[in-house]
């Protein structure tokens, strides 16, 4: 309990420490940061499922879409408040995640990936084709949460959400349930031997990660103001995977660092257009070959080196926890 309060305090400190950013950056750069923070939530959620539990779902972006469309449609058609719409989006994603998880999580590795990918494509086609409801490629207008398209208020919202996502993920990973999830990733059959209901906990991780994605997706929809099936393409999933792997799969901070890093890099490389994806692919190959622990591994190695030179700093740099 004391640990939770301390981490909550740490989140508040981090929030305060990052609150000045929109004051000194341009509108455009603040927008990029909002999108980065959106990806932080997606990446942290996917890492919980793929990194810590070992279940490679390829439908994570779809849950963001489900959250966004559910919320926007309910707000627009039923006239419910936006926050209620976001909650409804999260509930819808949880329900769909529960169902899809029940169907797919008994499958192993590649079959799970294929089944979730097929699901993702089906949902995307459905959203495209059912244009009477979703307006398909014409795009669905989502009411703006703060009544303005300016990025600054959304920066404060997404900063809070991203830190909240990190806090929730930390609590899960370092709890009894987290040990079950990591045991499942290590050896599913052995986890069952220990009395862990592997199917149930895999589904738990699946639902939690779906909810992360849906909340992020719904809020992002009410920020951008226009939904389309385009972000439900596989590209988006690939982006999340690249973020998590370049940051450090199975590390705690990795996905968050990777999300910000890749989003910023992606903006820098914008003028090269689609070539970006090739560059990212090369980056991922390089990371896997050279630094499997990603950016986090790189920082740790750097920390260890500095710590060796300046022993006084070592306790600050060398914080390693067993579950990281």
């Amino acid at each position, binding site marked *: 309990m004391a640990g939770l309060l301390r981490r909550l305090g740490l989140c508040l400190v981090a929030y305060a420490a990052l609150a000045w950013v929109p004051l000194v950056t341009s509108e455009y750069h603040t927008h990029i940061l909002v999108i980065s923070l959106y990806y932080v939530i997606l990446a942290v959620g996917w890492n919980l499922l793929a990194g810590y539990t070992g279940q490679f779902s390829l439908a994570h972006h779809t849950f963001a879409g489900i959250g966004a469309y559910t919320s926007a449609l309910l707000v627009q058609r039923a006239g419910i408040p936006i926050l209620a719409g976001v909650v409804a989006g999260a509930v819808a994603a949880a329900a769909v995640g529960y169902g899809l998880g029940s169907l797919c999580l008994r499958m192993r590795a590649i079959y799970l990936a294929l089944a979730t990918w097929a699901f993702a494509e089906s949902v995307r086609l459905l959203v495209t084709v059912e244009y009477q409801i979703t307006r398909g490629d014409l795009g669905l207008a989502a009411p703006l949460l703060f009544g303005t398209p300016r990025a600054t208020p959304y920066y404060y919202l997404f900063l809070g959400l991203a830190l909240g996502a990190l806090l929730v993920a930390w609590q899960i990973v370092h709890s009894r349930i987290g040990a079950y999830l*990591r045991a499942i990733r290590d050896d599913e059959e052995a986890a069952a031997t220990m009395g862990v209901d592997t199917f149930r906990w895999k589904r738990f991780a699946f639902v939690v990660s779906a909810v992360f994605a849906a909340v992020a997706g719904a809020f992002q929809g009410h920020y951008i103001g226009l939904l389309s099936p385009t972000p439900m393409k596989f590209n988006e999933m690939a982006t999340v995977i690249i973020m998590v792997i370049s940051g450090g799969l199975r590390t705690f901070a990795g996905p968050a660092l990777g999300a910000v890093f890749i989003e910023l890099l992606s903006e820098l490389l914008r003028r090269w257009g689609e070539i970006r994806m090739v560059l990212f692919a090369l980056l991922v190959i390089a990371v896997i070959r050279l630094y499997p622990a990603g950016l986090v591994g790189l920082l740790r190695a750097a920390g260890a080196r500095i710590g060796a030179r300046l022993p006084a700093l070592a306790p600050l740099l060398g914080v390693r926890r067993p579950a990281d």
Partner: protein
Amino acid sequence: MALLEVDQVAAGYVEGIDILAGISLRVEAGSVTGIIGPNGAGKSTLLKTIFGFLHPREGRIVHDGREIQRAAPHEIKRLGVSYVPQGANVFAQLTVQENLLLGAWVERGDRGRVGQMLERAYATFPRLREKRRHRATSLSGGEAKMLSLAKELVTDPKLLLVDEPSAGLAPRISTEVYARLVEARARGVTILLVDQNITKAVEVSDYLYVIEGGQVRRQGPQADFADHLRELIRDSLLGA
């Protein structure tokens, strides 16, 4: 009274090929029951079937008066059955303490009891206490084997299924493993032991079964086997 009864069980991994061909045996409460037999006799398959990794095609498995042949492993574990597979079955990425806790948590005991369980495990396996904050990857083969046994014993199971406890271990460590098993029996844990090490199995068991081709070929109390040890070993080496 028999704690475990396997009754006419037939089971296999693919349809049409039964590894267990109508096998029947009993494990008396408080005993060590040994199962020996040549490679491919179905010894490990028998344990996997009892523990629910494999469901029998026909026959019944009764534990403590309850049919368990359709139950899943985690359900069987909750009934007080633990399974120590061959080799070092530990979670490499979890710390030693997390490995031990995993079993204790599943029991859903109150916090005090979890602490007690842990304390007892460390008292029995002092080496694990020293390494409790280390990840299990950093353990030696012998330490990992101890951990895989300790994490099953931590919950005080009624019935412990043990598959080849000495496979691949240095003699000194394998002696320790058997000593821990005998200790557990003295505390009231019933043990079903599958072993290739005939000498050791006969030494620690109260009652033994020889199985071959998925069926019981021979059975009897320890004394019957102790007198014919040489003959048994010769038979098993020649596969007769």
